[in-house]
């Protein structure tokens, strides 16, 4: 019996969240997954015996606490352990440490620059104000500014009021923050290269823009607006790898009677009389439901699995123009022991944090120049972690697992597809970069999984390997995400919805798009809402 009340395409974290809330409302829901395993980019895989790789997303902060609590994810096995700080290694043998303890952090900044240490509190306060502004809107459907519906007008007014309440100057500062480059934003506070570079990393991760490109300050905010256990801005590891999040969500979904079907590769959404009626798989199987929810990115949703004749022309054009750019790659490495880095005591807690090697904005910008020229960065920006220092389940005792996020890697090499030789060259540039700062690193490598945008797209189905399912630029945020006029999770086809990171509030392992979409679907079905509202910050 292949008849359901709702079908969700894609068992990534948003698809599972969406399915869970629909099932909780009493709907008969199936989540279809192309791969033989669930999770999408929120996955842990044992790719080398004894080592578990969070082989796409690798740290957690954005996952909405409302959802964690409401779906009782801890009861379903999820534990997120925050890690403290991080470091950027410098070419002169020194490093800059980012400590979670405020006093220690102040002293560390002051070691590099007294002036910057004094600017840090101002920076933290200003940035925290921005996160407080945006956080209440994460668990809400964005209003349509071109609509005259009472709900949109009311929400817009409320939105406008929360900004007006800032007062003239703070409001203008906010606009500045939302439009500035992360380089310019940091220049307003700090003078020291390594300090700026350490912080600027969050402004470019997953983004096809450089540190001098306007709009990257927002990307920084996007990485600051999450929390671990109420600690806003903190990041943590999911015990057992990021797959633990998908596993917990799937258990919650199944506890409401939901069904997960793997190895189910959707070929096309079946549309009858302008309404969604189900999906047809590539192997010929069909599943029927009056509600179809796509957790694929907007390009795949509208250009791959829907017959163009079922869509208005403007949507086809908008989907074609949707910006989803490959900009990053990943190395997952099994290590025979703990690597040692110049200048840093291996017992220092910073080792368990995020480690980097770009000590100036200029180096980060040059890395972007390579991307613009259609090649991987020769001096790449790395966001490197050793999660096994925090979570011993990731590797055998005494051994370590290392996750290296790499920026930049273009979707195509000088206009052509990636080759295996390119992949080797990319891998080498990363290994070389780390080896420059760690004498024993190269000899510790037991296994290395290298993922360019080509591999990420092939496995996870993210177009161009873009981790956010669409650039986080203002033209694709809030009521513009994925496109103006379609930001409320409804597609132009009746009964067909979107719940991916390509919708508001966007990318990262947040689960808010899946939950928000469920709320809209339940409203259309006139069912009671099961989705929790956002928590208020104090």
């Amino acid at each position: 019996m292949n008849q359901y009340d709702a079908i969700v395409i894609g068992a990534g974290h948003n698809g599972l969240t969406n399915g869970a809330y629909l099932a909780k409302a009493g709907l008969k829901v199936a989540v279809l997954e192309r791969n033989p395993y669930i999770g999408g980019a929120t996955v842990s895989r044992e790719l080398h015996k004894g080592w578990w790789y969070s082989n796409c997303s690798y740290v957690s902060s954005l996952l909405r606490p409302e959802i964690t609590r409401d779906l009782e994810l801890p009861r379903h096995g999820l534990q997120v352990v925050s890690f403290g700080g991080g470091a950027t290694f410098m070419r002169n043998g020194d490093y800059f440490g980012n400590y979670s303890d405020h006093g220690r952090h102040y002293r560390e900044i002051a070691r590099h620059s007294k002036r910057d240490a004094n600017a840090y509190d101002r920076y933290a306060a200003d940035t925290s104000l921005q996160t407080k502004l945006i956080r209440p809107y994460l668990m809400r459907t964005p209003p349509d500014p071109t609509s005259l519906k009472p709900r949109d007008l009311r929400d817009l007014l409320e939105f406008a009021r929360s900004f007006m309440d800032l007062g003239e100057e703070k409001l203008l500062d906010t606009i500045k923050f939302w439009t500035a480059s992360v380089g310019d934003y940091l220049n307003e506070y700090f003078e020291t290269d390594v300090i700026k570079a350490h912080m600027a990393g969050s402004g470019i991760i997953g983004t096809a823009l450089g540190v001098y490109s306007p709009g990257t300050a927002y990307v920084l905010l996007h990485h600051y607006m999450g929390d671990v256990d109420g600690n806003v801005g903190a990041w943590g590891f999911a015990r057992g790898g990021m797959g633990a999040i998908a596993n917990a969500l799937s258990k919650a979904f199944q506890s409401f009677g939901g069904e997960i079907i793997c190895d189910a590769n959707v070929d096309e959404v079946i549309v009858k009389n302008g309404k969604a009626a189900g999906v047809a798989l590539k192997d010929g199987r069909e599943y029927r439901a009056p509600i179809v929810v796509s957790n694929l990115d907007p390009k795949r949703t509208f250009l791959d699995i829907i017959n163009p004749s079922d869509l208005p022309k403007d949507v086809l054009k908008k989907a074609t123009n949707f910006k989803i750019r490959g900009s990053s790659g990943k190395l997952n490495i099994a290590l025979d022991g703990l690597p040692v880095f110049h200048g840093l005591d291996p017992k220092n807690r910073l080792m368990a944090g995020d480690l980097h090697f770009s000590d100036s904005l200029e180096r980060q910008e040059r890395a972007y120049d390579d991307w613009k020229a259609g090649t991987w960065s020769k001096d790449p920006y790395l966001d490197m972690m050793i999660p096994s220092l925090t979570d011993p389940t990731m590797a055998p005792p005494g051994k370590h697992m290392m996750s290296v996020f790499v920026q930049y890697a273009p979707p195509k090499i000088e206009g052509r597809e990636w080759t295996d030789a390119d992949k080797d060259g990319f891998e080498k540039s990363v290994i070389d970069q780390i080896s420059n700062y760690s004498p024993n690193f190269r000899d510790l490598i037991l296994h290395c999984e290298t993922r360019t945008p080509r591999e990420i797209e092939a496995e996870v189905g993210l177009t161009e390997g873009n981790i956010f399912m669409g650039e986080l630029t203002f033209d694709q945020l809030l009521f513009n995400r994925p496109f103006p006029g379609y930001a409320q999770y409804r597609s132009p086809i009746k009964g067909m919805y979107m719940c991916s990171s390509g919708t508001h509030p966007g990318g990262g392992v947040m689960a808010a798009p899946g939950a928000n979409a469920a709320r809209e679907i339940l409203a259309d079905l006139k069912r009671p809402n099961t989705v929790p509202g956002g928590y208020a910050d104090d």
Partner: protein
Amino acid sequence: MTDYDAVIIGAGHNGLVCAGYLAKAGKNVLVVDGRTEPGGCASTREFTPGFRVSDCAQWLSQFDQSIVKDLDLTGAGLSLGKPKATIALQPDSNHLILDGDTITGAGVDSADQTAYRDFKNMVRSFAKLMTTLYRSRPPKLVEQNWADRLTLMKLGLGLKLLGRERLRDLMRIVMINIYDVMNEHFANAAVKSAIALDAITGTNMGPRSPNTVYSYLHRATGEHLAQTGTTQVMGGMGALGQSLANAAEKRGATLRLGSPVTAIVKTDDRVTGVTLASGETISAKLVISSADPTTTFRNLLGYHQMEAGMARRVEHYRSRSGTAKLHLALSAVPNFKGLTEAQLTERLVITPSMDGMETALNPMKYRELSDLHTFDISIPTLEDPALAPAGQHVLSAIVHYVPYTPDIGWEAGKPQLLNQLLRELEVFAPGISELVIASDLAVPSDLEASHGMTGGSWHHGELSIDQALMMRPFPGSTQYATAVNGLYLCGAGAHPGGGLQGLPGRNAAKEILKQGALS
């Protein structure tokens, strides 16, 4: 008793426009400037004996027509040339011609034609909306009064009249980059880069940089403001400065040229006048500065005269520019491949593909010289032979991207850059180097020194969203009145910004008169 009602710092076009309006209203106004000619960036310079060029700005395309009328600039001697087409030179000599709403050459087909018309229509509707905002005081968003509310209502109505789809287009594209917008609209590479050039002119941004669509729309307001097309000013751009000076003086304003202001005098809690290099102090009820915000607040007023928060905003006001100006004195008409002599009177542009422009930009970011540039070329002597000795010509070009100071220094860098530019010109105009009698290259640091523009920024500060409209130049000093009592802004660092529009000067004068600050 003060010497004057208002003393205006800077006899650039905005300072003179402001003076003209205030004098017309019967106010006793003094304009002071360190330069010996009026006009500021609207100036003509004899860079080598017998050859005169438009020193900085070379095209008039957005000067607000209401100012021409209100100050009777035509009567004061302003005379414009004929409207010019833009010819984007191609290496294969199949040049792209952009004339009004039509494009020809460079392999454009009917699909490109239609796309271009649609694009121009879209831009026109957005630029019209901006014009509403440009001709008004920038409204405050929170602490509004009735005037602000009226502007916002007009704006809201304009947005509504765009229609839903256009409004959605606007919401999406206004924050993004010209690179993506070009790729969405056009297939032809020559069309894309010719339009992209207008989006980056006067800036330090590449086509991929967000804010370039705004910068393009800013230029596009010219179609509504000036309605003259792109023209040259007969006698060089200095003739515009001279006509503005004539108009202001005729209405009773006093000009003192060759008298640099060294300080703005603040007594207790308000500004009371200015000090000149001669040591003389001039008192006035108001000081109105058409100098850029950094010069005004940091150099002339001084950080010790303002609150720390404001000093910080001044310090972080961004005025970077990648624009240089090249002048060549030529012994004869240069020969450009594939162009008739008549076509040489048009606006000629040379630009690589959009990706090439990005590559050309990269070295500037690291204080290096590029081996690829964009050119926006004028040969004014073809329409205005009086600018050079008979039979001889000048060629002026706006060039991108040039660093403020390269690491090798300008002493070594300038000859190298000049040679490079000539090499690039040779590709399109073979033999031009042999015609060169004299040359002059003004890099951003030269423009800063000669015209007092911080960073060499033609716009008196980058035209990015966070430094535009109600945020220009920075919060707290946005409606021409600054956070310092008695000190006003009327230059391009105030709304609506740079380019030869004259609107900052006009709007500032109107605001001052309306506020009754001089009564």
